[in-house]
């Protein structure tokens, strides 16, 4: 690895802790900075360093190494250890890279959507949220997961509520998110408590060892598993537990919507993978039952019903939010089938969906930035008014549907073939059906934007006004990335297969 030799050694050896500590500490400083531009620069630098560190760690993973970082020098299982393996490093890179893109996008977008006095604290809360997400993905300690889950959630509630200067419904959306998010986190911590009763340890690797020695453990472990699944299900918007998501996505500042859509639910999904497959084991009777009957049925119901609901939304952001719930269903389907191919496909879809939804929400945010529109019916003639932004939206939309040569196609195809090789042809049918529904809800927006004429105000056609460059760069970055993945998914496949290997064999876990 040539690139790796250019890295300073400390960035790799202390990378696991650095990823969490740097945004956490600088987030606290950023919150009290007097000038918003300064806060923005600090945020950009911090997220860039995190991305570099995460990329370096990913290269070491590809080199076949896993890392165990002992916080405070205390040995596991007594101390808190951070684990860097094939399962969580791609998610770490995803979160920090999305944070960089959001920050770039944020320069014009935050200036338009957040009140001037709140902008520096806004960036501070954002950095702390990034630290929380990175922490809950990097840590190997079950209670530490809860702490970071709450760190990221609390800052997210604040970020969602910041949309109030644009739309007051952001406040009620943030409140609902707070109630359901806290219940989810509390359910999770109850589950961890039951696991602690059963195993007497909080270290995930140690828990896994003791649970497999006990052959799944007593009823306490079973109940703990149930609480953890429900708690994480609330956080990742598993189908019947998704009520907080549309409001939070629709009324938060566009910057926050992108960040939430592409990282927060993904980190929770990663945790569900980590707990179901490495802490517990699908070979335990109750885990297998939950996977086959609960997770899969919820996934399929979510895919169909949320896609249907997405068709009937008048607000473009709500359409995309319901589509997100449907896409979570795809990932859960991959989790539920539970073979190496399906896990790899689900994991790939997790990353691809983050990229696709990021591009789509970036574009919708740009529409609002220029014309103040979010309703689908107001999108008339947008292809003429903002051709570049609409172009990125179109690529993202096609990728979401799963048109060949886009990222969405790769993961959907992998998922369908995994289901087919398991003999589950009905699952292939469901994937097809929801793709058709996606054609309807994305196509509806595209039709209005391309084939209707721009609206006229006072007898004049509304002038063409492209989004600023700072918005176009991250948007097109993601759009191009999704096409590149569609053409050659070698690296993504390799990362996803590595993750599936960790899940099934416990390599490095």
């Amino acid at each position, binding site marked *: 690895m040539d690139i790796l030799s250019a890295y300073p050694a*400390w960035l790799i050896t*202390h990378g696991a*802790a650095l990823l969490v*500590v740097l945004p*956490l*500490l600088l987030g*606290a*400083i950023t*919150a*009290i900075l007097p000038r918003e531009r300064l806060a923005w620069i600090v945020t950009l630098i911090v997220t860039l360093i995190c991305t570099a560190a995460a990329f370096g760690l990913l290269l070491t993973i590809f080199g076949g190494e896993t890392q165990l*970082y*002992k*916080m*405070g*020098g205390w040995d596991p299982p007594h101390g808190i250890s951070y684990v860097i393996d094939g399962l969580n490093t791609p998610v770490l890179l995803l979160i920090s890279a999305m944070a960089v893109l959001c920050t770039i996008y944020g320069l014009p977008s935050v200036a338009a959507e957040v009140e001037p006095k709140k902008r520096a604290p806004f960036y501070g809360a954002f950095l702390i949220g990034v630290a929380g997400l990175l922490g809950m993905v990097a840590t190997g300690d079950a209670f530490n997961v809860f702490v970071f889950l709450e760190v990221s959630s609390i800052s997210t509630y604040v970020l969602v509520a910041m949309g109030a200067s644009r739309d007051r419904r952001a406040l009620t959306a943030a409140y609902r998110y707070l109630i359901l998010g806290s219940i989810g986190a509390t359910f999770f911590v109850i589950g961890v408590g039951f696991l602690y009763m059963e195993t007497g340890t909080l270290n995930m690797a140690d828990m896994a060892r003791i649970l497999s020695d006990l052959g799944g453990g007593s009823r306490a472990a079973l109940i703990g598993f149930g609480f953890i699944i429900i708690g994480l299900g609330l956080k990742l918007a598993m189908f019947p537990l998704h009520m907080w998501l549309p409001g939070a996505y629709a009324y938060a500042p566009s910057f926050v919507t992108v960040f939430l859509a592409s990282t927060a639910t993904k980190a929770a999904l990663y945790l569900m993978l980590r707990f179901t497959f490495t802490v517990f084991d699908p070979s335990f009777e109750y885990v297998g039952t939950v996977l086959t009957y609960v997770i899969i049925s919820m996934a399929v119901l979510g895919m169909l019903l949320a896609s249907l609901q997405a068709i009937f939304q008048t607000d473009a952001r709500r359409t995309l939010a319901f589509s997100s719930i449907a896409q979570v269903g795809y990932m859960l389907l991959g989790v539920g089938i539970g073979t190496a191919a399906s896990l790899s496909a689900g994991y790939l879809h997790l990353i691809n969906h983050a990229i696709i939804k990021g591009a789509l929400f970036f574009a919708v945010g740009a529409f609002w930035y220029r014309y103040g529109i979010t309703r689908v019916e107001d999108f008339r003639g947008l292809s003429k008014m903002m051709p570049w932004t609409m172009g990125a939206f179109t690529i993202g939309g096609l990728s979401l549907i799963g048109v060949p040569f886009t990222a969405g196609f790769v993961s959907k195809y992998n998922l369908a073939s995994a289901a087919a090789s398991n003999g589950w042809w009905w699952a292939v049918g469901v994937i097809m059906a929801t793709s058709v529904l996606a054609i309807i809800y994305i196509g509806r927006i595209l039709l209005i934007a391309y084939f209707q004429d721009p609206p006229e105000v006072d007898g004049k056609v509304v002038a063409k006004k492209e989004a600023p460059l700072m918005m176009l760069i991250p948007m097109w970055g993601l759009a191009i990335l999704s096409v590149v993945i569609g053409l050659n998914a070698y690296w993504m496949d390799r990362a996803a297969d590595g993750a599936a290997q960790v899940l099934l064999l416990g390599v490095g876990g």
Partner: protein
Amino acid sequence: MTPHVILRVVSKFLIPLIALFAFYVQFHGDYGPGGGFQAGVILAASVILYALIFGLDEAKKAIPPSWVRIGMTLGVLVYGGTGVITWLLGAEYLNYSVLAEKSYNGQHYGILLVELGVLLAVASVMLAIFYAFGSREPDLSDEDW
């Protein structure tokens, strides 16, 4: 004369004691129950009591909100900075053993520094929450609630 003479006199006597007790809890945390969290809350409680008796404006004169904001950040920085120092000394994050020649001295200094950071952060955050809620002007009178 201002009202509530008894309250004013008693609280003037009590507030320094409460603050002192906070520091007792803080530094006794090494030997027994106690520590930064509890001490921070007690310290903030002394200021909040002052604000309740003498008014929010007086309290803000004594401890300005800008100090509180800086205190929050400073607390986090003292805590995190301890970890950064251990990094610079070549050990893992927050491995206090390298802070002194003998590792038990190092552990002692480390936990003192960290608890100091916790004290600062907790006391400032408690005050910040109190100031934030206390200084909002109600737009409707109490009867309308």
